[in-house]
């Protein structure tokens, strides 16, 4: 039974689940939602009725997350579904991502905002090509924590040896990928062992069950400990009587923190000044931190507009017109050098082009192929990008917010690619 006392202060953990329906992904999510009372009676009645109509003896839990008609028809996940649940310890946002290679771009969408990834493996099948692909994408997107859930332990009589073999294989390839935190756990999502409770059928397993990991895994502190980055979203007019400079700059602190009086640099102009005030609806703040949407006023009158960046003067970002990046191509139309492209990074959007395509990464084998002829949907390529106006940027490995960008087709306005700066 869920504890209904409302906690005043709760953190949010965002995680993705990867693996195919066959690996028991839907069963796992269903169990997490049930046990945290996030599936209510009417939803349960609806999926039970549909399952019965389809002649199933037991409720098909994938009906909970596969929200589109086309997904239910085909029994696959096409696009990300977001689900919400909470325990007394934390709030959780699950992005349930598709497993098929065809929908890699949708998995990337879900992974881009996640703090942790659950990779599901079937203990009988072990590490598959799909597992490798998912682990690589998760790593590329900068997710620091991974839980490899070795599922279907009930099918191998909960034998330690079977689990150990999969764990060994998984660590052999995932260990060198450089995650901060990898945990491999045995599980039977169907029977419940290893999900919320450790269960009694695997006395040999001394580690925590999945939910305990989700409740206690350290949240990514990088946004707060990185240097101050504040992309300007807009310029606001302030009432006349208040200040001499009647402009305020709205935005969200992407990383770091800021205190009134801090020395900051405005990019791309390169001018230095100090923070005069930090304002929110309720009044002025002495300081603010990563994640907060605020408005800043500055001591000096500097020409600033949307797309500029206010940043730590001691640790400023790079200012570059040409840079190397990893690109995930999303469009069904392959890259075509004659099309006009726009690069949107933080709040800045500038014309750009691929100057060079260095190599293509095969996420199944992690072998790269030099100078590919084309860049097609779901390809991950290392490129040099050139933009018309300089961007204030950091390496994605250091800063997810200022190291990421999307590429937009100037004509169709479609988002054709996403990139991570090297």
């Amino acid at each position, binding site marked *: 039974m869920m504890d*209904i006392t409302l906690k*005043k*202060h*709760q953190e949010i953990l965002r995680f993705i689940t990867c693996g195919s329906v066959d690996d028991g992904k839907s069963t796992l999510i269903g169990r997490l939602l049930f046990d945290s009372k996030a599936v*209510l*009676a*009417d*939803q349960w009645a*609806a999926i039970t009725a*549909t399952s019965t109509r389809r002649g199933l003896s037991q409720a098909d839990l994938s009906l*909970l*997350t596969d*929200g*589109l*008609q*086309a997904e*239910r028809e085909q029994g696959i996940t096409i*696009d990300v579904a*977001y*689900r*919400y649940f*909470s325990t007394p310890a934390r709030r959780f946002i699950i992005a349930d991502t598709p497993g098929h290679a065809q929908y890699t*771009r949708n998995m*990337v*969408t879900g992974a*881009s*905002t996640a703090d942790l990834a659950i990779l599901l493996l079937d203990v009988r099948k072990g590490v598959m090509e799909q597992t490798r692909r998912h682990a690589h994408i998760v790593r590329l997107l900068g997710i620091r924590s991974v839980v490899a859930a070795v599922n279907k332990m009930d099918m191998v009589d909960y034998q330690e040896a079977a689990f150990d073999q999969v764990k060994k294989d998984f660590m052999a390839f995932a260990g060198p990928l450089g995650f901060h935190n990898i945990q491999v756990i045995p599980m039977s999502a169907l029977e419940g062992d290893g999900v919320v409770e450790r269960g009694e059928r695997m006395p040999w397993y001394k580690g925590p069950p999945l939910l305990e990991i989700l409740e206690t895994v350290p949240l990514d502190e990088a946004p*707060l*400990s990185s*240097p101050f980055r504040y992309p300007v*979203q*807009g310029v*606001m007019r302030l009432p006349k009587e208040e200040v001499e400079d009647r402009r305020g700059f*709205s*935005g*969200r602190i992407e990383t*770091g*923190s800021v*205190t009134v009086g801090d020395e900051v640099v405005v990019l791309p102009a390169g001018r230095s000044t100090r923070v005069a005030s930090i304002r*929110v*609806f309720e009044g002025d703040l002495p*300081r603010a*931190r990563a*994640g*907060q*949407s605020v408005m800043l006023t500055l001591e000096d009158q500097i020409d600033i507009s949307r797309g500029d960046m206010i940043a*730590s003067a*001691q*640790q400023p970002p790079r200012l570059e017109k040409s840079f190397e990046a990893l690109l995930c191509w999303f469009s069904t139309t392959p890259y075509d050098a004659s099309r006009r492209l726009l690069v*949107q*990074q*933080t709040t800045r959007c500038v014309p750009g082009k691929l100057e060079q395509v260095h190599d293509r990464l095969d996420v199944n084998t992690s072998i790269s192929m030099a100078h590919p002829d084309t860049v097609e949907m779901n390809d991950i390529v290392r490129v040099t990008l050139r933009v018309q106006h300089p961007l204030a940027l950091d390496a994605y490995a250091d800063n*997810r*917010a200022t190291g*990421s960008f*999307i590429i*937009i087709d100037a004509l169709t*306005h479609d*988002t054709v690619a*996403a990139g991570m700066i090297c």
Partner: protein
Amino acid sequence: MSTAAQVSQHSWAALDHLDRLEAEAIHILREVAAQCSRPVLLFSGGKDSMVVLHLARKAFHPQSLPFPLMHVDTGHNFPEVVEFRDKIVAQWGVQLIVRSVEESIRQGRAQVKSATDSRNALQAVTLVDAIHEFGFDACLGGARRDEEKARAKERIFSFRDEFGGWDPKNQRPELWDLYNARVNPGENMRVFPISNWTETDVWEYISRESIPLPTLYFAHRRAVVVRGAQLVPISPLTSARTGETVEERWVRFRTVGDMTCTCPVPSQAQSLAEILRETVTSELTERGATRTDDQTSEASMELRKKQGYF
């Protein structure tokens, strides 16, 4: 140790879930104002649209809102909600556009079998017409992903073609917090700043921020009939069927919508604290408990969205 690391060890409180959700919504609202040339905030006076309006005031303070509000009036509103809507518009000095389904029916743009049928689905016609009339390129709304399984699949910035249709199999990738709101003339974006909020978050936030709400969200006595698992409110548009008995009961509404298909739940909760307690212990989802139109088929919401519905 770097300066930033020192600051992180100060005792000032970390952001809690409501702070984070609020900051995310404000960021989204500001992106809409910056990227779109003619945005509009769809406003019904219901709790979710009140939360979005409150967030918008915060996002642009001390300036006034950079977009008008628009109510797509079904003609089937609860009178106390319309009264509340007008009071808020006057008090907060915001601009309100009203476009009515009634007018779309008169013009023959929307067809109805009977005057008392639900007009929820018909709103799409009036909405798409109004989008073209004003040239809106972005419509902000208070829909949440936890409401319904098709909504759980939708992007925060959700692209609509020139017919207002949603193509769920071919959504624009949406990564990090980089939103691409670009559209060609005739197309538009539906933007949902509180996508990641749950019903509980909404009530906690309303309570924390003291956001005013229409009275029918709080427990009151109302004439209803018991029909199936639901309590159907008696109104000029909904009457008791043969064999049904009209009773006065203590009820409150969890959602406000078309009077003909929105049902109250039994409740004694007259304060926000009591509502919050009921919300976290409820056995039914918000829509399951209160909307008759979502239960027609498993894909009702998806089908309506493909036709331009919010």
